[in-house]
């Protein structure tokens, strides 16, 4: 079971199948670009088969089956959801094709169906945001928080929420969640939900806005400005992702804290893919390097931003 099969393609490099979630955000397209560019540049990789599943698990499963039929060497999967992969990954295993997870993870019970996962830890991102909140507001009076959630039901939304409150509750911060609504991870959603927040609750009493991603945060900042408040001052703002636009807002003093979620891990992924194909032993989880940035770091970090 060496996977060389009738690999089909003439070259000796690897054929990799990549089942991407979709193109739902700038983060995601930056991620796709990074992986595609890395594969292109890498001599060890002969071809990258890229499929965009438009956020549907059914389409991803279909894509994996097609990869199996094509007898690719390695399958990279960025799962839309955590559960439901048992059968199709089992099929890949039977066909002798190793699977690498990129970005999101899958349920623990299926751990032996993939070799390793390379990606971010959304719960950890939530925790990072939580820690800064505790640090910044701890000890004072009740911290009043507004939250802009991601798409209802999506893993990053759920995990970033979980990690955040885990720390807040764990550290015993005295806080009140004024309101929490989904802004669908979009600027449009962030802005309109924020407008409603402002007209319903006002901003005078609110201390912190926690936005699950950049775009919603940026949308909300506009709403805050249009209502005559100063984002970053009248209300402190945490955003997750760390796109260029997010950092620019940070430089302008409109954002107070950025938790990075790094999409640019194409090169790292190619290394992992090659290792996996060679049968090397790997840790189950290979974290992507990700930082956190406060007001002092924004200026310096901005030039390094790739998306």
């Amino acid at each position: 079971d060496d996977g060389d099969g009738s690999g089909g393609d003439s070259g000796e490099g690897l054929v990799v199948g990549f089942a991407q979630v979709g193109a739902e955000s700038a983060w995601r397209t930056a991620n796709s670009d990074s992986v595609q560019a890395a594969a292109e540049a890498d001599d060890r990789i002969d071809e990258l088969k890229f499929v965009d599943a438009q956020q549907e698990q059914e389409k991803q499963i279909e894509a994996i089956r097609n990869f199996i039929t094509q007898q690719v060497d390695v399958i990279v999967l960025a799962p839309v959801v955590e559960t439901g992969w048992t059968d199709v990954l089992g099929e890949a295993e039977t066909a002798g094709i190793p699977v690498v997870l990129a970005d999101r993870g899958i349920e623990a019970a299926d751990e032996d169906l993939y070799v390793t996962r390379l990606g971010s830890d959304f719960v950890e991102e939530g925790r990072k945001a939580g820690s800064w909140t505790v640090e910044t507001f701890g000890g004072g009076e009740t911290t009043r928080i507004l939250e802009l959630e991601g798409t209802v039901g999506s893993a990053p939304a759920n995990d970033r929420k979980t990690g955040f409150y885990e720390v807040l509750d764990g550290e015993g911060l005295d806080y009140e969640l004024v309101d929490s609504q989904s802004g669908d991870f979009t600027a449009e959603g962030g802005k309109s939900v924020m407008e409603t927040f402002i007209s319903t609750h006002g901003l005078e009493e609110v201390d912190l806005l926690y936005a699950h991603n950049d775009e919603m945060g940026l949308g909300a900042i506009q709403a805050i400005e249009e209502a005559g408040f100063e984002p970053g001052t009248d209300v402190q703002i945490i955003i997750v992702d760390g796109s260029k636009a997010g950092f620019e807002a940070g430089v302008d003093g409109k954002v107070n804290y950025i938790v990075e979620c790094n999409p640019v891990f194409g090169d790292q992924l190619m290394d992992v893919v090659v290792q996996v194909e060679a049968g090397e032993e790997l840790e189950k989880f290979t974290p992507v390097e990700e930082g956190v940035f406060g007001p002092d770091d924004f200026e310096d970090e901005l030039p390094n931003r790739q998306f």
Partner: protein
Amino acid sequence: MSTTTLTERSDRSTLFDGLGRYIPIAATIGLLIAMYAGGLANYSNFDNPQLIADLFIGNAALLIIAVGMTFVILSGGIDLSVGSMMAFSTMALAWMTVELGLPAEIAVPVVLVFGTGSGMFTGAVIHYFKVQPFIATLAGLFLYRGLTLQISDRDVSIREIEFFSWGMDRVEFGNVREGGFSLPHISFIAFAVVIIAFIVLHYTRFGRSVYAVGGSEQSALLMGLPTARTKVGVYAVSGFCAALGGVVAAYATRSANPLAGVGLELDAIAAVVIGGTLLTGGSGFVLGTVAGVMVMGMISTIIAFQGNLNSWWARIAVGVLLLAFILLQRFLGRSGEKRKT
């Protein structure tokens, strides 16, 4: 009395009138074959028989739902709630078996009965209160999605439930490695649904009333056909199929995803229409729907084999393929049709 034949009758057209309605589906199948041949010529491993089998694995739920949709569209209606209903059914199954600890043997019938019942309710609202189908079922689209999210806003695993492991057990046709193929049980569920639907539509009174109502509801009523029963019936069938699609989805992934099947109703409608069924009702075939689903699957297979399209080129490619398909179908259909206006 047959001595006088009162009307003049030319012998022309009798043959054609019989065959004319098969043209769209013939065109669909022809184009499907052409697409397959194109794939064969361009991609290695495209000749693997499993590739065709896979069309019926990944699209088993879609096929079932599209069959239900065929009933509704043939009757001149439309059902937008099927995607949400499917997600809701899967989620409800997960909730009943995992949270409530009900045996799956009970949960599955409950879900199917609920799907059928809510379809009947929708149908009754449409028929008796004359609410437009598009709107009544759009309310369903929102409602079932909302209920699904209220059960759980994250995916739920049901792998521990023994019952759901049956669905993906495979039946092998020849050795897969030596050019055979295998199909899981869920594909057979889908085939069974297609066959039953075919028989019901073509060989039962209910099926023929569906066509009659789709042709002209007013006339069907005046002919004394049970239009109320028919209209309520088609939505019940569609609700049942959507719920069954949910059960199949539960089998296929052994998990429930609250955002599953978003936009699935449009895929189903597209499959039905590509299969030659007219949205105005009264004309079409359930076997055309099978071809339609295969076309949708074949398009994504080709894109996966092509493999070098980024997200946007992939979308554009799907659009262009659909366009080519529909225009060719129109063109072939027309040149053959040449019927009286």
